[in-house]
């Protein structure tokens, strides 16, 4: 899966999970906490749904470090790459 495809999947999940909190444009530097106003529980929901959709898991300890949308996408790309090795 390309980064673009992963990015689109995650955007759709965010929109489905927290539709009232999504800005018109989600860019790589969009800060998940500030710009989307997703609280910590909302973030858990988004990550869990992304994990289920993409079939990989992000170690929970890394969750706290993910700040921007781009970082979330990159982390899933990393886990997908590991899974495909």
């Amino acid at each position, binding site marked *: 899966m390309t980064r673009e495809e992963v990015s689109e999947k995650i955007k759709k999940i965010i929109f489905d999970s927290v539709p009232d909190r999504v800005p018109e444009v989600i860019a790589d530097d969009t800060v998940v*906490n*500030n710009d989307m*106003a997703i*609280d910590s529980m909302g973030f*858990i929901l988004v990550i*869990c749904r992304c*994990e289920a959709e993409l079939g990989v898991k992000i170690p*929970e*300890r890394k969750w*706290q470090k993910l700040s921007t949308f781009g970082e979330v996408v990159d982390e899933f790309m990393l886990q997908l790459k590991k899974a495909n090795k």
Partner: protein
Amino acid sequence: MRFSGFQELLEHYAAVSPDAPALIYEDREKKVCSFSALKKLVAEKADAFRSSGKRCIGILSDGSFDCVVTILAANIAGLQVVMLDAFSPSSTLKGSIPYADIDCLWGDEELCEELSPFLTVGPGGNYADRVLFFTSGTTSSSKAVVLTGQSLMSSAWNGSQKLPLDPSDILLCMLPLGHVFGFVCGLLWGLSCGAAVALGRGTRHYMDDCRYYQPTALSAVPSLLGFLLAHEGLNESLRLILIGAGDCPADLLSAVQARNIRVSFGYGLTETSSGVAISTKGDPFAMEICPDDEIILAPDGEILIKAPTCMMQGYYKMPEATAEAIRGGLLYSGDLGRFDDDGLLHITGRKKDVLVLPSGTKIFLPEFESRLAAALGTTELAVVLKDGRPMLVLCGEAEEEETVRKKIRPVMDEYPRGQQIAGIVFRSTPLPRTATGKIQRYKINVN
């Protein structure tokens, strides 16, 4: 029944109800560990600790069955147990290890390996029965609170006198054990009543743990409760929810009560081994004082606590901070309260410069704001809560928002997401302050 420590608890129930379930957990499938089996496992592990020569263990808690067994065993074996938040930034953990004299670690292998260079030779002196909890909130000024197995069990007994559980109950433990509320009200409360404690399966299962374990009782913080309600995460057999560590919005409360689930609030601090007051009747905000505790109000309304059986021994290696917090045998809580006509305690506000998030996490404002001030080059700022989320209030124009965001980003990156600034509010007038220059946060309107 009142127990003097973990050992006595296990011995009692292993004798009177050996086959009763103590812990329910998942290990590829749902498993049950009886009190007698738990006692045996803990004893074996305690023997291993005794022969290891280790004196202080840092627990990077994940709430698992092995984690619980390790905590109980290490305490019984005489090691000083330090509860660490595995999700804290590495830099915080690396500082906590030498500070707390940790000479061995339990937890995620990769993280233990990363932290192992910071291990020390262990503490000197008498450290038996000590269990250290860090005051909640990720900040370099976090203090380790010295509790004991005895004080923790006393706290559990106190709670059970007000909210008894039955041996047929199942208490679901979803909160982090690294926080004293989770440890006492998520774990010890159930075990001390001889009830089964179901160990939550972690963050990924927040939504379905209640359906999986079918608990009858649950301890929760407001943010978790809101999440469970929003996602139909509560089971029908649930009859009691104990809420602690933060203000609970009224709509959450009514949503729970509409499901015929009884709600109780607990009030307490890490320094008092968790709760000192619990609501037991109709109004969840009106709390009875626990049997071992006494609360008096200072002239300014500050809650002063006398808790002889549950009080901390002090802040670890911080005698001055301890002397400031406990004066004349009373803990100065920093919270404000009042007693109603029935003698029930109501929390009315906070005196300390602390924000308490719905997750129970505290933000210590002097440090937090000074770091933001350094990044922005101005002290004309304040952090306040809006809808349970930290907002930065600044004097200036809204057009500056992007610049402000960029400047504070490196600082925010060092804090967990839930503690990061969620929004910026600009105001054209100076921040309201007292005659001595202290910000009057209650006068700041961010809506």
